């Protein structure tokens, strides 16, 4: 038989246990701070994400750290600005909290009115900015590589700039402009060789009957890879072409740089750009102000490819 006092003690004990249970396992008494998972859509200007592998690694790293849900979207057609804007609209409607956009056409895309904040990876300083901007100055990059080419150029050599007019975007245009300005100032002979949709580049045919030495500059990573493959299959062309330069850091490009097929490349720190773009998006969503971030670029040749600084940059470990 339990006394009256004992019953009270038992009651208090049970009540205490119930209170502990409520405190530990429910939100009734102590409310757990709810952490919102932001949905961030990244829309690039390319049809494939191969050129964005390091960018993606940086993006995924930031997604883990900031607990955000990031997904990368590619276009059906390379540099199709209309489609990119449609996708921006679609992602906004589908509930994305913020967008990160590598614009197919920086001017048109920046003009598009959006409700959600947009972080732009801009190919140069723009008048119209997004909620946050990471600026890669491709014009300066073009200037840098042109200066390096001039330093390695044999006398009486000319430069052929390899372009794909149908798929050219702002990055390509600015890169070429920077390079062209330097070559023009130096009084260097230049030619623009356009890629034929069906036949690709016919460099050997172009070079036939010419005695001059030629340096090649590719406007983007795809062209650099394509021309490098083409020249490696045609050793006879080696005598006429005295250097292949360009931008991009895909695995085939780095392999070709290592093998000496490519003479020099300009690269950006894509891992950091991917990481910072997500950081900017999160900061914007948390109501913080952003200032444009200027991304660095680097010129790399075979000789310095294995330097620890560049190894970390080109082969980042998540």
């Amino acid at each position, binding site marked *: 038989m339990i006394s009256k006092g004992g019953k009270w003690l038992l009651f208090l004990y049970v009540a205490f246990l119930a209170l502990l249970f409520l405190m530990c396992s429910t939100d009734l008494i102590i409310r757990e701070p709810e952490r919102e*998972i932001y949905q961030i859509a990244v829309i690039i200007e390319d*049809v*494939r*994400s*191969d050129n964005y592998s390091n960018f993606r690694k940086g993006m*995924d790293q930031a997604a883990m750290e900031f607990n955000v*849900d990031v*997904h990368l*979207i*590619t276009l*059906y057609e390379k540099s199709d600005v209309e489609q990119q804007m449609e996708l921006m609209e*679609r992602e906004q409607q*589908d509930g994305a909290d913020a967008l990160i956009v590598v614009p197919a056409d920086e001017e048109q895309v920046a003009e598009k009115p959006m409700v959600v904040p947009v972080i732009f990876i801009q190919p140069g300083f723009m008048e119209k900015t997004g909620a946050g901007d990471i600026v890669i100055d491709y014009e300066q990059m073009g200037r840098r590589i042109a200066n390096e080419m001039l330093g390695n150029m044999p006398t009486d050599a000319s430069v052929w700039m390899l372009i794909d007019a149908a798929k050219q975007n702002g990055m390509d245009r600015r890169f070429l402009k920077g390079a062209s300005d330097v070559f023009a100032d130096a009084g260097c002979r230049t030619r623009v060789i356009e890629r034929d949709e069906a036949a690709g580049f016919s460099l050997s045919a172009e070079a036939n009957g010419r005695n001059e030495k030629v340096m090649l500059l590719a406007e983007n990573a795809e062209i650099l890879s394509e021309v490098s*493959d083409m020249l490696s*299959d045609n050793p006879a062309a080696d005598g006429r072409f005295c250097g292949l330069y360009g931008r991009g850091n895909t695995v085939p490009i780095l392999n070709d740089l290592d093998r000496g097929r490519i003479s020099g490349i300009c690269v950006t720190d894509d891992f950091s750009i991917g990481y910072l773009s997500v950081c900017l998006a999160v900061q914007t969503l948390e109501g913080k102000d952003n200032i444009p971030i200027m991304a660095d670029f680097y010129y790399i040749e075979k000789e310095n490819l294995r330097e620890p600084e560049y190894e970390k940059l080109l082969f980042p470990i998540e």
Partner: protein
Amino acid sequence: MRRAKTWLTILLIACACMLASCQSVRKEEEKNSLRIGISLYRGDDTFINNLCSILEEKAKEYERENGIKVTLDIQDAKGSQNTQNNQVERFIALECDVLCINLVDRMDASVIIDRAMTAGVPVVFFNRQPVEEDMERWNQLYYVGVDAKETAVLQGQMVVDLYKEHPEAIDRNGDGVVSYVMLEGETSHQDSLIRTEWSVQTLKDGGVPIEKITGGIANWERSQASALMEQWLSEYPDTIELVISNNDDMALGAIDALERAQVSGVNIVGIDGTIPGLEALENGSLLGTVSANKEIYASAIVELAASCVLGETMPEEYPLIDGNYYWASQEILIHEN
């Protein structure tokens, strides 16, 4: 009292109908988009890398053709089953509709299957086949791959056919025996063992007089194969006539070693038909390879993933064997002189 009971029953039925209709509306809404979580055993594997690029293209094709938004979350497990298990957990937390998993350890699929079953998320395994006991645990588990025995038989047959047509092209020193070395993939991968066994068996059955000089495990990797081949070239100079490789990457490693040693006249056959493999085939450094139709392979993964989620039957062009397996077709590719 009786009347009250009747009204209560009607009310309950009405509530149940409303709930059911809400559920079906939700399902209808879900059909407009599809989120697929993809985990790769190693993103730097050439075959997987090629396949993954095609997967992205096929997902976009599906999106265009069917008007269903397809979002792919692609993660690289970097050879760690633990990492892959965490990735699966994250995919489920992010409410992926279906998982496409290229297992790191085919013997260790149970954690992934447990998590997927609990969340009710179907799983399409590809390229690295889980053990049968695991596959039988749930009817929402599928596998897309190639028939390893068929691959090996095709690889062997390619050499048999060449030997019958031009024996001197295979038996380079004309001693009546084809001396070969074997480059094997991971021991834990089902395809490695089957490819090794059946390519050699096919050569024997086809009447090619073969003699194994040596063999080694290069774990599907070009660099490891290159190191092994370099060692064999110094141990057995002027002896090796044929290199049988379980995949193209290792075959390319053997080619690298031959180029370094400036040795020519060794025939090399691979498997996979990767982009670098096809380049080697074109320039003649690789004699031949067996290639799965990667377009169909990738399409099958996307179609199967979509049909699991949408509750549709798999299109006729992708017939499922035993209800859960799809085998992609393969072809022999030989260097044309």
